């Protein structure tokens, strides 16, 4: 347990090191989620529009 605390403490600089790694992870995950959602949203919208176009062409 004390080994874990020593590791997390990072020679007394844990308050700076962990936020740096944490913010990096949050921002990278944020871009990943935003980009995937952007793609899914446009795919869905394009599919709906294509269906509308096909239906109106048949009509």
């Amino acid at each position: 347990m004390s080994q874990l605390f020593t590791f997390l403490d990072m020679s007394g600089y844990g308050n700076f090191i962990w936020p740096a790694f944490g913010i990096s992870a949050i921002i990278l995950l944020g871009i990943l989620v935003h980009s995937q959602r952007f793609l899914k949203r446009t795919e869905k919208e394009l599919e709906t529009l294509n269906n509308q176009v096909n239906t109106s062409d048949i009509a």
Partner: protein
Amino acid sequence: MHRLANPTRFLRLCNMVKPWAMAITLLCLATGLYFSLFKSPPDYQQSDTVRIMYVHVPAAWMAMFCYSAMALSSAAALIWGHLVAQLIAKATAPIGASFTFLALITGSLWGKPMWGTWWVWDARLTSVLILFFLYLGFIVLHDAFDDTSRGARAASILAVVGAVNVPIIKFSVDWWNTLHQPASVVKLDGPAIHSSMLVPLLLMACGYTGFYLWMLIVRMRAEFNSNKIRAIRIRQANR
């Protein structure tokens, strides 16, 4: 190069590259994090704060790399009018802005314990802040016009003009007296950093580069879809 201006051919290439980009990202980031946090030694002067380097430096490199990619593709879009080049610039901007934001925040978290301050208006930090504003300007300008082609053109001009900031960032530590340390990896006489720190740094840099490629491909596909949606809507409105 011009062969890739064909959207179908470009998307086919993207589909081929995407699994590799994902694999490189996950593998390099996992091993890079392991080496950064567990294997690399503390610095004799900076102690464990040197570990911030493994997320700060790759983010700063990517901030400049993404801007260079954005400026080059904007120039290609202006000169040849290629849609693919224009969309590469548009898809790169939010990714590059995020890397720049990360470089600024992690740099600040490293600066406080080492310099005794979160921020200082020196040449390196200020020029990176300007880079962040250039990214934001590009993103805002792109969507500021009803006519999307005018917005894209204005944003492309901003990206090309703003490219002058990239060498200023790189050489700011040599041209001016700054609190920021000079280059220690990308140097003419080789890196001045021990391999125990260079290996995790390069692994993280590879991971960040793979991540950029992966996100670029995802966003490019979304941008192509957006373009098709806009075209269908215009066709429907003109009927």
